[in-house]
């Protein structure tokens, strides 16, 4: 009974023309068909947030989208955060500087959630950061390093506004 469709996704600036089963989730499409394994799958029922990517600039749980729904969309994953010459996005740098990750499995989803959040909230309070992160589960860190990294990144991004929309092109 399985249908397939030809779709076109632009992921981190590159266009991918692929054929997918219509029941394939966007998360599985990114990971196994386009081979961008940075986005992770933790629950497949929309709670843990590990699969969060940006679709047309919005943080979305890619396990709750079908790949066919992303036909024609502009997608950003964690692999698209650093600049082409490898310079880390302020968010990534802040996570390193503030011990914001341990096993790293939830991290890509956290980064993408924060990317959108900080675009709309350039000077959040700690409480606002914690609320924004409440849809991303972490079992390792207890969130303290993540929150510190987010606040640190917000500060850095305020100083370099052109980083807000993505990595600097070198």
């Amino acid at each position, binding site marked *: 009974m399985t249908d397939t469709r030809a779709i076109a996704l632009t992921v981190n600036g590159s266009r991918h023309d692929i054929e997918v089963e219509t029941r394939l989730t966007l998360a*599985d499409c990114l990971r196994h068909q386009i081979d961008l394994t940075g986005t992770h799958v933790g629950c497949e029922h929309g709670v843990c947030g590990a699969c969060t990517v940006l679709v047309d600039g*919005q943080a979305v*749980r890619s396990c709750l989208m079908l790949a066919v729904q992303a036909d024609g969309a502009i997608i950003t994953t964690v692999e698209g955060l650093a600049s082409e010459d490898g310079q880390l996005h302020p968010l990534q740098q802040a996570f390193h500087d503030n011990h914001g990750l341990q096993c790293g499995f939830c991290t890509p989803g956290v980064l993408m959630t924060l990317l959108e959040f900080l675009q709309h909230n350039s000077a959040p309070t700690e409480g606002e950061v914690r609320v924004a992160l409440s849809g991303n589960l972490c079992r390792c860190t207890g969130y303290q390093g993540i929150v510190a990294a987010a606040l640190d990144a917000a500060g850095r991004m305020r100083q370099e506004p052109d980083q807000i929309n993505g990595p600097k092109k070198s």
Partner: protein
Amino acid sequence: MKPPPFHYHDPRSLDDALGLLAEKENAKLLAGGQSLMPMLNMRFVFPDDIIDLNRIPDMASIRKDGSSIRIGAMTRQYALERSEVIRNQCPIIVEALREVGHLQTRNRGTIGGSLCHLDPSAELPTVAQGLDATIHIQSKRGARTLAMADFPSFFMTPAIEPDEIVSAIEFEPWSKGHGFAFVEFVRRHGDFAIVGVATLLELSADGMVSRASITLGGVGQAPIRCGAAEGIVIGSNCSDAAISEAADSCREIDAMDDVHVTAAYRRHLAVALTRRALKKAYDRASGETAA
């Protein structure tokens, strides 16, 4: 946890969607996906056909329609949160939306989807009931409306036919400066409310309550309007005594039991949260706190 196989359709007009729905016997509508996709991934549902509404233009909109506000069913929750019209005229929706899931949920979730899913603990059905919303329903056979009070049929099932789609929700905003409060109790931010209370109040010039709407979510299978409590506060100035009496009337309400919490606890919360919601709504109506 992968979805079972299905045929996928993404119609480009509501008419096409209605045609498909009329034709397919075992179809499910895909709106925001925040409820349907988990069910598909967990293989709780086995539709032969999925009809994706996301490519239909004009199903998402927020409009003033005379004196009422009309919201297209596919309007995303984040759009409602950020809408000037909603913030100004119907702030209880914004207050409730802050509790709906998380950032990621609200980017995709729709108001129509939440209403049709009718999870007893969901915030939007409770608020819709409190606003006495009208649900617009369409099918190939024509259009009709349903009062929100009549919308829930039984547990997580709206009173719509298999060939019908909810196209919009409409309600009259309360008068300028009305009091409002959405208060809920959750274990963690973004969880479904264990109990939520939506309260709207209008005051007359002398500070007495002239109109009241008190709705409980998460207590019964569908949102419950507390007529008794409303009757108690109308004509009062929401003194502590009046609020307590109104809240206590919730003790008698039929509540659900489940593995997480007892009916007794739900009733207990209903009383405590109604008290809080009434106080907050009254303070806002009388201008004592910023909204």
